[in-house]
């Protein structure tokens, strides 16, 4: 008989690190009680984070492993979610954690995005699959809140933000994945001004579920006669159940679940093949009305920043819990003797945290998790400071940094999340490969993050093709300039000076590589751009993360001068120093290696013939 999967919480978060980022490093605390954050103070932020953590550990966390084992079912054309999800959904919306960052006019609490994103880290980290349903509803509702007509906002937003109705984003089709412009779903104008939708969408997360009384699909479709490619796509509101203007549910809207995907992970999240209009009875209306026809892609693009940040945060949520679980195991598990007694078979067995390579893996995970989380909060703190900008130039600076950092957070955050989870398994050894511990599920769940919401290569192309040149290159210049200022200020720091100077060297290399990319564009060497884009993104991310960690370490070093002996903050701040020094010395050198690779311009992957890859 196989072992039962236990409904116990394994999720762990580091709330002290959250507080450090909000109140010590990025000083979001100084915005509280002012302007749009007038209703907030530090205590409310801390109580909210603590209460949300409690909710994730008691409600969402215990369902994570059982839902993975059970998966979703398709019964009589409807999706049945895993046991416990319905109750958790009700509890989530009663507690209100999905509303924390929503503007008060839509029923939310209007918190800083930096607080909301840490709440999301906990919701995603505790149960990625469960949080998909509410996450998609949130995203779809945001689209309607931003671009919908007043009537559409009244009908949908509060209900979708509040959990009464779910929501999805329907972009992908069998022949239109990353190449979304080749979508074939059609929309035909009816006499009453509505449109008849017909087509098939695949990989639709939460495409149907039993958690809410209706699911509102946002469907990219081409109106008859519209241009080919992305320029002819319109975003339609297509409810599963037709609704009247007051929200009363009516007839079935001819949206059918053709199948559920069998996946590597997030098995509690229903990934659906959806057929629209099999019986020519599927009705939709354009988001924002007929004036917004063919504007589906620009609408999607405006929402993309938020969605991509959210995926990066999914990564950090899972990776952080993987690290903290591996750490707990390493402190507890006894195996082998200390290296100082390696010849003595009778020497006492020690906890594996005493072994050098386990310590290396732990510090590697710690530095990546903390550094990427800091990069996330740096990004969101720029969003939070937007409304406080003194003038257009300051606002442009903040928005520019947001745009520049989004592909880094999404791609580097999720690539590293998978690697952290893999390292966590390695830390456990054989136990980590079993379902007795959470890390194998974390590893399976988090692989999708580097693929959906724009694959990580699409992020890299977004970075090198759009973001570097944005505002005439001013955003990149500001980013490089901020690092240069930091290096100048701290290059002679007693403990961290050498690492800060290494960051300075890497920053110069990054500037050189950006010029190299520019030269490739200008000289028509276009094939080199996608070949090196992923490596450029990784290089820039490593430099950004090293900067964030060193910045944190310098703050921590100052705080260490005054922290009382015996206070747990002493260990916390020391940990910050070691995170930074490890990352600067063991990871950052890889950034300059990538600069050298770009200078070398090796094009082997392009030059090799298709046949030469293998002769089988």
């Amino acid at each position: 008989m196989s072992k039962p999967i236990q409904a116990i919480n394994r999720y762990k978060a580091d709330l002290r690190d959250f507080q450090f980022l909000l109140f010590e490093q990025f000083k979001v605390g100084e915005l509280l009680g002012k302007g749009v954050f007038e209703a907030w103070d530090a205590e409310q932020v801390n109580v909210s984070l603590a209460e949300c953590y409690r909710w994730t550990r008691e409600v969402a966390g215990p369902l994570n492993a059982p839902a993975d084992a059970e998966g979703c079912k398709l019964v009589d054309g409807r999706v049945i979610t895993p046991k416990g999800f319905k109750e958790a959904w009700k509890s989530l919306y009663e507690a209100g954690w999905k509303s924390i960052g929503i503007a008060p006019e839509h029923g939310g609490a209007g918190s800083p995005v930096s607080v909301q994103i840490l709440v999301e880290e906990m919701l995603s980290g505790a149960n990625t699959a469960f949080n998909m349903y509410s996450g998609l509803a949130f995203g779809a509702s945001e689209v309607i809140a931003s671009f919908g007509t007043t009537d559409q906002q009244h009908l949908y937003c509060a209900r979708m933000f509040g959990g009464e109705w779910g929501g999805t984003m329907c972009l992908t089709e069998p022949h239109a994945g990353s190449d979304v412009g080749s979508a074939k779903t059609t929309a035909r104008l009816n006499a009453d001004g509505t449109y008849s939708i017909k087509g098939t969408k695949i990989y639709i997360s939460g495409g149907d579920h039993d958690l809410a009384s209706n699911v509102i699909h946002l469907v990219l479709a081409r109106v008859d006669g519209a241009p080919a490619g992305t320029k002819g796509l319109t975003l339609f509101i297509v409810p599963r159940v037709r609704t009247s203007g007051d929200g009363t549910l009516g007839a079935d809207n001819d949206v059918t679940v053709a199948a559920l995907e069998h996946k590597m992970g997030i098995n509690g999240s229903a990934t659906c093949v959806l057929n629209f209009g099999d019986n020519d009875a599927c009705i939709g209306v354009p988001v924002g009305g007929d004036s917004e026809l063919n504007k589906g892609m620009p609408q999607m693009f405006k929402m993309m920043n938020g969605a991509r940040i959210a995926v990066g945060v999914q990564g950090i949520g899972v990776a952080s819990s993987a690290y903290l679980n591996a750490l707990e195991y390493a402190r507890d598990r006894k195996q082998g003797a200390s290296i100082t007694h390696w010849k003595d078979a009778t020497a006492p067995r020690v906890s594996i945290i005493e072994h050098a390579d386990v310590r290396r893996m732990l510090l590697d995970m710690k530095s990546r998790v903390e550094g990427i989380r800091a990069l996330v909060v740096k990004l969101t703190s720029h969003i939070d400071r937007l409304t406080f900008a003194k003038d257009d130039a300051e606002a442009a600076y903040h928005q520019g940094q947001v745009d520049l950092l989004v592909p880094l957070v999404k791609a580097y955050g999720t690539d590293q999340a998978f690697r952290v989870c893999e390292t966590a398994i390695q830390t456990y050894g054989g136990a980590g490969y079993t379902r007795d511990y959470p890390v194998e599920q974390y590893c399976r769940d988090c692989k999708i993050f580097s693929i959906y919401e724009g694959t990580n290569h699409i992020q890299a192309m977004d970075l090198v093709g759009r973001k570097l040149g944005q505002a005439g290159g001013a955003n990149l210049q500001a980013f490089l300039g901020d690092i240069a200022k930091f290096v100048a200020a701290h290059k002679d720091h007693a403990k961290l000076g050498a690492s800060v100077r290494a960051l300075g060297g890497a920053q110069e290399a990054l500037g050189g590589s950006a010029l190299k990319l520019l030269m490739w564009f200008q000289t028509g060497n276009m094939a080199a751009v996608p070949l090196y884009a992923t490596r450029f993104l990784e290089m820039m991310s490593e430099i950004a993360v090293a900067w964030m960690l060193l910045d944190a370490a310098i703050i921590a070093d100052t705080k260490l001068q005054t922290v009382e002996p015996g206070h747990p903050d002493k260990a916390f701040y020391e940990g910050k120093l070691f995170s930074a020094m490890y990352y600067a010395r063991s990871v950052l050198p890889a950034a300059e290696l990538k600069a050298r690779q770009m200078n070398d311009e090796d094009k082997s992957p392009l030059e090799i013939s298709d046949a030469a890859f293998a002769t089988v």
Partner: protein
Amino acid sequence: MKILVSLKRVADPDNANKIKVTPQKIETTGLEFKPNPFDEYAVETALRLTENAANTKQRLGEVTVVTFGPKEAESTLRAALATGADKAIRVDATDDALDGDLVARALAKLIETEKPDLVLLGKQEVEGDANQVAQLLAEYLGWPQATFAGSIKSEGDTALLVGREIDGGTMNLRVTLPAVVSVDLRIVAPRSVQSVHTKADHAYPEGVRFAALMAIMAAKKKSLTEVKLTDLTGDVGLKIKYTGFEPPPARKAGVKVKSVSELVEKLKTEAKVL
């Protein structure tokens, strides 16, 4: 019904390994604090008694939470306000200047002005585990008391039927209000508290309710007043004197026995349990 609940923050029991003990005192620097679990159960009990479970947003009575502690202890009160309590009072004091008797005397004075119908307390706090305040308070007030409540059935605003957890079973006591009741763990089981407002077959989720985000935001606007300990009692002397502190002795290493007969022998001669 007006209910007053006393609430204390305690060093997080999950971080007990961080506590440093010197012969003079227990070092509390850097400890994380949580509400005393039994006190949280008392707050939950008060909320269940003053609401219809079908609409927990409307409070059908008044719940006042009181703590004795420094300014930082106010976050414990705010958290209680966020779960539904109506108002809070902090009596300014530090732990080392308090004992159960002083707290009971000060509470008795506060209760003269607050005039609750019921005082609910946790049966004990999980630091000193003294288990004194409820009993002393009832005595000072001259009110009936029911300690270690595992169930409470409200009989209007005049009496409670309290199931006390005692060795070997449950003792059912009817107490006339006003009264002092201390609660035990099982009071937060789904059907342990029956108010006059909620349908008798209602089952609450096990344990203490979550604070909803909007309630956390609204808690800031609820009344939180500060009272000086000396305004409640002129005599702030302590009856409990601590003469020294020491950590519990470390466990001795075990021994491996070679056979069952050796084990039995040791259980007889060394452990003397057979």
